[in-house]
């Protein structure tokens, strides 16, 4: 479990980071590294340079304005979970971040790392999608719909750097997660956010293409925001992923149950 030869670089600015990236043959940005480094240790990835972006000032900090909560891409999970501003304005987000990985992982992992990776079982993508987030990169601004492009895929081009993510403040929101008993990633999880213009329901852990919006649930909840509104619904099995831990049928059931729990619990709840 040793990495292939690599060069560690720590730029102080976005421009410097980009220049270092462009000069590399197979470069990678390094943030928390809790996905990248295990892949590199297992020799399933090889990068000639690792560009550590955690100290770049533009990528730091949590700020609030009237409509949005903006979090710098290099902000660690523990800092988001503990920040009073997050806890006050979107308690479900703070709660959700407090369930990512474990204590040690939260002390290192970052929001940018998680969102740039877009693991189909990660928590953050569902919050970003349900909270109608705006993704700011060093080049452009993207909506969550534009940003997430399927399994492990985002709109980020090679060398494009995620700078910050702005979550639209909801009237209220809830997150419910059913964990994979082995990995502790979500087998299925739902982030439900009520905005002035409607309800957004984002599902992670379950879909073949990663995070997605469950539109039927959104309209049912838009009609009446209570868990019973979802009773007649069935999550679409066609799109559910299937593996040794849960088949599509079970995932569909969990999706519905998590969504109902996210409706009734205005924070974050872990169901297993």
């Amino acid at each position: 479990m040793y990495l292939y030869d690599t060069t560690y670089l720590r730029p102080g600015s976005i421009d410097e980071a980009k220049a270092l990236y462009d000069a590399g043959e197979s470069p990678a940005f390094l943030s928390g590294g809790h996905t990248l480094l295990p892949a590199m240790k297992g020799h399933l990835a090889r990068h000639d340079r690792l560009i550590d972006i955690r100290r770049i000032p533009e990528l730091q900090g949590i700020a609030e304005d009237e409509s949005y909560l903006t979090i710098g891409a290099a902000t660690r999970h523990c800092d988001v979970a503990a920040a009073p501003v997050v806890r006050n304005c979107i308690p479900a987000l703070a709660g959700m971040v407090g369930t990512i990985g474990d204590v040690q992982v939260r002390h290192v992992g970052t929001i940018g790392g998680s969102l740039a990776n877009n693991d189909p079982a990660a928590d953050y993508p569902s919050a970003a999608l349900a909270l109608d987030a705006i993704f700011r990169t060093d080049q452009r601004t993207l909506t969550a719909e534009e940003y997430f492009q399927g399994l492990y895929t985002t709109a980020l081009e090679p060398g494009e750097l995620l700078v910050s993510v702005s979550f639209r403040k909801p009237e209220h929101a809830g997150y419910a997660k059913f964990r994979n008993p082995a990995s502790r990633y979500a087998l299925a999880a739902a982030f439900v956010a009520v905005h002035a213009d409607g309800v957004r329901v984002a599902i992670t852990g379950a879909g073949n293409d990663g995070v997605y919006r469950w539109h039927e649930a959104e309209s049912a909840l838009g009609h009446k925001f209570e868990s019973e509104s979802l009773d007649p619904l069935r999550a679409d099995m066609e799109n559910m992923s299937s593996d040794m831990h849960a088949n599509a049928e079970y995932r569909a059931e969990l999706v519905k149950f998590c969504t109902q729990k996210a409706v009734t619990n205005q924070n974050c709840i872990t169901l297993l």
Partner: protein
Amino acid sequence: MKLVGERLLETSRHVVWRLLNDGEVLQRCIPGCESLSGNLDDGYDARVVLKIGPIKARFTGAVTFSEVRPDEGYRISGKGQGGVAGFASGGALVELHDDGGGTRLVYNAEAQVGGKIAQLGARLIDSTARKLTEAFFTKFAEEVAAYEAHA
């Protein structure tokens, strides 16, 4: 793992067959394909980069064809070595049927993986295979459309 599906293509079986046997078209359709050389009779040698999240593996492999029935379909079989990542093998029965003015392409595929990706990536194998298949046929449909537009 089994993957079954079909695509409706707005062109004749003959055109679909031609494109299915055009190495350049195939190279553009196979996700991550860096090189593809060969032909229907002898099969193809391929180099494909597979990227799933943080994982990147380069597979080299050979593709062969059997049960070749021009304008109707064939059986395609392949094997690839991904070095440290492991290996993959699989096959698909591809059939072309007339459907309205177009062609219905039906595939019945199976795939197996071994080595590290099988041991460490269990949760992703199914979704990834689906994604790659989907990507191939989406691109192929684009190629068909482009061909038609050109013709």
